[in-house]
Structures are given as structure tokens and as C-alpha cells.
């Protein structure tokens, strides 16, 4: 295998009429890496992934996969990719096994059906119609369909959205096994815990652009503090005086309050509370948690992912 990256795109732009869904996006994903595209709904993640998958033409920009591009090597590229779309309803009245055989027939080489069934824990559901499967089983079948061609790059667009916690963990285990084999995974998600657990590197996307890029740990460390305090008051607060308090790293105004990253919660919190008292403000809401990738997003945009 040569040294070219698994996926590279530069200056990717996609317009839908007057709406710019992707706005000059650059990515470089290494072979063997599990890379996460993170962002709220409507950030342009799916559009970006579908351009990379060769399903949508970009308005402008270059895409290169495994050293080839879609225009000249589309057919051979297809055979080397495995794709799970954000929402696919497979045929209701085909069984798990029939669906896999169908998809398997499109690829020149790949694992045996039994092996795939075992891998996605659907062996005892092989004779069940797609419509009779649970959400998690449907999603595992979708991933199995992406694996039938023994792909070098696996694209998973929001693979765990809408699944219960157990199904999500089951799917994570599946992706981790694929990673161990040294293959490349591009994953989109709006679940920060998912990205934190699975991804070697993540790009945080907002409004069609990459606003932060790095390993999950480095991104969280870039916040400075290890904990996050979110608070709401009955009136405005002076942000600069708050950021002057010992242990406070950043202060970010939210739509209905403030978000602070702090180093030692147990030392900083009393300081914060007494500062509020001196300012004559009363707390109407307070919460703290360990810093996550979500706080990186908040720190860059002033919004929560779910806003």
C-alpha cells in the first residue's frame, strides 16, 4: 500500500440552491485511522460524507480516496468501500441472509455470509424478514451490508442514532473489531461519547466547516480545564471578572447562561458562588460535569450540539 492518505478532500463546497451545506471543507484521513466527523444536525456532515462516497457531486473542491478520484476510477473505488447510509430501509420482506447474499453478489470478493452473520450477531436472525428486526438489528445488518465487499474504507453515517444503549455498545464493539484489522473508518455522529470512545481523531464541523481538529484528548485538553460549570442567574454577569477568578480557564456566554471551564472544581466552585453573592445575583441553575468533546463544540460556537 502506498503512502497516500485514505481520504483527502480540499476546499469542498456543496450548494443546494442558495443554501451552502458545505463551505470549504478540508480533511485528510490516514489509512488505518478511525476518524470522526462531529457536529450538530445540519452541520453538513452527511453531505460531506456522501460527496466522499461518490454519491453526490461537489459544487467545487477535490476529493481523493486511496490515491484515486471518483471521475477516473469510480468503478474500482466502489469495490474498495463499504457504506452505511444515515437512513436506509432495506427491503422489508427479504430475510437477513437474502439481503446479505444480494449485496455480496455486487462485490468481486468478500467474507462468507456465515462469517458476516456471526460478526454482527445475527446468526439466529438469518431467516427473519428485515421488517421484523429491532432497530439495533437493522443497523447491524446495515453495517454487515457495508462489510460484504471486504472494504478498505468503511463509511458509517450516524450508525447509532436512535438506538438503545445496549444496541449502541454492541455496534461500538463491531466497529472496534474492524479497527483492530487496521482498516480505515469514517464515522459521523452527534454523540460525543461515541466519538470519544471510538475515534483516533475527530473533526468538529459546524456550518459546513471544520472548526476544530485533533484527537479527542487533545481537543478536550485545549479547553484548559478538566471540568465544566454551566450556570444561570437572575440577571447579567460580568464575564471578565469571572474569568479573573482563580482556576477559571474560559468563560463562554450561552443563549441562557454561562459555561465555564475550570481546573479544580472543588476549589473554584466556592469562589464562584461567593462572587455571585457579592454581585447580588441569585443562581437559577447550576450543573457541572467533566469536560467532553461537546464542551469543545460549545467553546467554539457558544451553542450546544442539540440546540
Amino acid at each position: 500500500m502506498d503512502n497516500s492518505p485514505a481520504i483527502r478532500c480540499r476546499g469542498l463546497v456543496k450548494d443546494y440552491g442558495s443554501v451552502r451545506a458545505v463551505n470549504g471543507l478540508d480533511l485528510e484521513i490516514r489509512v488505518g485511522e478511525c476518524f470522526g466527523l462531529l457536529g450538530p444536525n445540519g452541520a453538513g456532515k452527511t453531505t460531506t460524507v456522501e460527496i466522499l462516497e461518490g454519491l453526490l457531486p461537489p459544487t467545487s473542491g477535490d476529493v481523493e480516496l486511496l490515491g484515486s478520484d471518483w471521475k477516473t476510477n469510480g468503478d474500482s473505488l466502489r469495490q474498495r468501500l463499504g457504506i452505511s447510509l444515515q437512513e436506509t430501509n432495506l427491503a422489508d420482506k427479504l430475510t437477513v441472509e437474502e439481503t446479505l447474499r444480494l449485496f455480496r453478489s455486487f462485490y468481486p470478493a468478500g467474507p462468507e455470509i456465515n462469517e458476516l452473520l456471526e460478526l454482527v450477531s445475527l446468526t439466529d436472525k438469518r431467516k427473519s424478514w428485515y421488517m421484523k428486526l429491532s432497530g439495533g438489528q437493522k443497523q447491524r445488518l446495515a453495517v454487515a451490508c457495508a462489510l460484504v465487499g471486504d472494504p478498505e474504507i468503511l463509511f458509517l453515517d450516524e450508525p447509532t442514532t436512535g438506538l438503545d444503549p445496549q444496541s449502541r455498545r454492541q455496534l461500538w464493539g463491531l466497529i472496534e473489531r474492524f479497527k483492530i484489522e487496521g482498516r480505515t473508518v469514517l464515522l459521523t455522529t452527534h454523540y460525543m461519547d461515541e466519538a470519544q470512545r471510538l475515534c483516533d481523531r475527530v473533526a468538529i464541523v459546524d456550518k459546513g466547516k471544520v472548526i476544530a481538529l485533533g484527537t479527542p484528548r487533545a481537543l478536550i485538553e485545549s479547553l484548559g480545564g478538566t471540568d465544566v460549570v454551566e450556570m444561570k442567574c437572575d440577571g447579567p454577569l460580568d464575564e471578565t471578572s469571572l474569568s479573573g477568578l482563580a482556576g477559571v480557564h474560559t468563560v463562554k456566554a450561552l443563549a441562557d447562561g454561562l459555561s465555564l471551564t475550570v481546573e479544580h472544581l472543588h476549589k473554584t466552585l466556592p469562589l464562584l458562588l461567593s462572587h455571585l453573592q457579592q454581585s447580588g445575583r441569585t443562581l437559577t441553575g447550576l450543573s457541572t460535569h467533566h469536560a467532553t468533546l461537546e464542551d469543545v463544540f460549545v467553546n467554539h460556537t457558544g451553542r450546544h450540539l442539540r440546540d
Partner: protein
Amino acid sequence: MTRHTQRQHPLWQLTLMRWRIFVREPSALFWTYGFPVVLALALGVAFRNRPPEPVEVAVEASPGCEPWRDTLATNSHVHVRWLNPQDAREALRGGKVSVVVGLLPSPEFLGSGKSSGPPRIYHFDPTRPESRMARAIVDDALQRAEGRVDPTSVRDKLVTEPGSRYIDFLIPGLLGFNLMSSGLWGVGFVIVEMRVRKLIKRMMATPMSRAHFLLSFVLVRGAFLLGELPVLLCFAHWVFHVPIRGSLLLIVGLSVLGSLMFAGMGLLIGSRAQNTHTVAGLVNLTTLPMLVTSGVFFSASRFPDLFQPVIKLLPLTALIEAVRRVMLDGAGVTAVANQIGIMVAWGLISFVVALLMFRWQ
């Protein structure tokens, strides 16, 4: 994971998929196989050949009309009622009788006065065929009873043999109609349903060949036909004794061609539509005009000459006309060459245009 290179042919797998989805859908099975038989049975019963029904006649209950009543009462082609004049007119207006026989109020109107009995008047509606027929039968019966001598002697020979009945006309029409609706719905609608479910998009993300995908629809239509055609033909043959005068092979060939043609048209109809409402509208827009004009239930020649060239070029007209001529007139392949040409053109043009404008995303 281990790599294996043996696999089944994608076209076979795609065709198998279409087939499985079809046979697992009970309603689709009924519309394809059951419905035409039910329709043929219903229409065959409704239009079955019965002995001619007597015409309904009223004679006005007035003095002098009794001989007419008595003459008509002995005639098996006439069912006569004796009604007072007002009730008789009412029965005529309500369609209970087709003609009313009465006394002419002022006989001097007739002039020469050669009449042997009292002069008659027939009340009837000339725009109703059964009314005109009733008048003729009644007048004929009464005139003869009154002594008319026909200058030429005639004899009737009754013909009600298989091949010239309504059910004989109907079966090729139903066959054509069935091939059309199962082709357009079975291909057009199903494609749009797959597009709505993003299944087409998912399959386009694999190395699947587009030609294989489209071809699988056409192949499955051909396979369904092998069931559709015998069901309808055997039913028609055994239940209604519909004759097959021409070559059975030619009928099968024409049906295959018709089936492929409508599969192509189904692809075209489903090539752009983004939701099932649009495609349902398009299918109805295509099938309904042909259902009326292409001679499914009644002959296409009933439409004005102005429209005939257009009607003859419609795909369903071509198919039904060809099958009808082979089945009922025993026509050979050269006699239906025009229709075959029309069908090939429709099929090819639709398929090529569908391929060019198909929305894969």
C-alpha cells in the same frame, strides 16, 4: 475476515430479490393473478348469452284495443300489459315498457282510410334502441295478424357460437389490460418506492451495475407473465370455451413483447418521481385513457375517425388488437406486424429514455 471470491451473479440475485418481494406480497399476487380472473368471471356472467328477452309493451285499456292485446299476448317475443292510457304513458316514461299501443284519437288524419280495423298509434322514444325495436316487433306482429302478406319468404338461422360472443372479445382485452397495469404498477411504483426508502441510493453505493438493476425488473416481469398468461387463458378456455384459433406460440410471443413494453414504460414512469403519490398519478394518467380508448371492454372503432390514427398507435391498442386477431380470427404473424412494430417502438423508446433520465439518487 477471510476473502472469498466465489459469488452468485448479481443479475440473478437482483431478479431473485424482485421475485421474492413480489411473491411475499399477497395483494400484489391477487392483483396480478386473481383480479383478472374475477373480472372475467363477473363480466362473463353479466354479459352471458341468454335467450332474447321479450319486449315490454303496453296496450291502452280502451274499447277497440282488445284484439291487439290478445294478438300480442300469444307472441312469445312480446310481454304485453293492459293499462289505462295515463298509466301506460307513465310506464313508458319510466322505462317499464318500450312502446305503448293506443287508439288514434282522430282517425280522419289517416286520409285514405284503407285500414281494416281501428287505426293505431305507437308511442315510443326513438332515441332508445329497445324502444325502436319494440315498435318494429309489435307492428310486425299486429300487421301479420291483420292479414299482411310478405312479398318475400324468409327464414332465420340463429348464430351464437364461441368466438363471436362478448366474453370472446373481452378476454384479449383483459389480458392486455392486466399486462399493462401489472407492468406499470409493478415496475414504476416499485422503483419509486425503492427510491423513497433510499434503497436505490444504497445500492448505487455498491459496485452494482445500473443495467443489471433495471434489467432485473424487466426479467421479473417476464417471469410473472409465465403465470399470468396461463391463468387467464386456461380460465377463459375451460369456463367460457373461448377459442384460440391462431398460434398459441404467437399469443405467448405477443404477450411477452407487451409485457416487456410495459416494463419499459414502467421504468420511464418511475424514472424521475420522488414520491409514491406522483408515480400513482402518472400511472393512472397513463392507464385510464387507454383503458377507455384501447378496446378493453368495447371496440376502439366506436370512437370518431378523427381519433383513430392516435388510438391505433397507443401501446395497449396495439397489444389487444394483435392478440384479438390471433385468438379470434386466427391471424398469423404478418397480419399483426404493424402492431408488433408499434410495441417494439414503445418498448425501446421508453427503455432508452428511462435509462437517460433515471434519477439514481
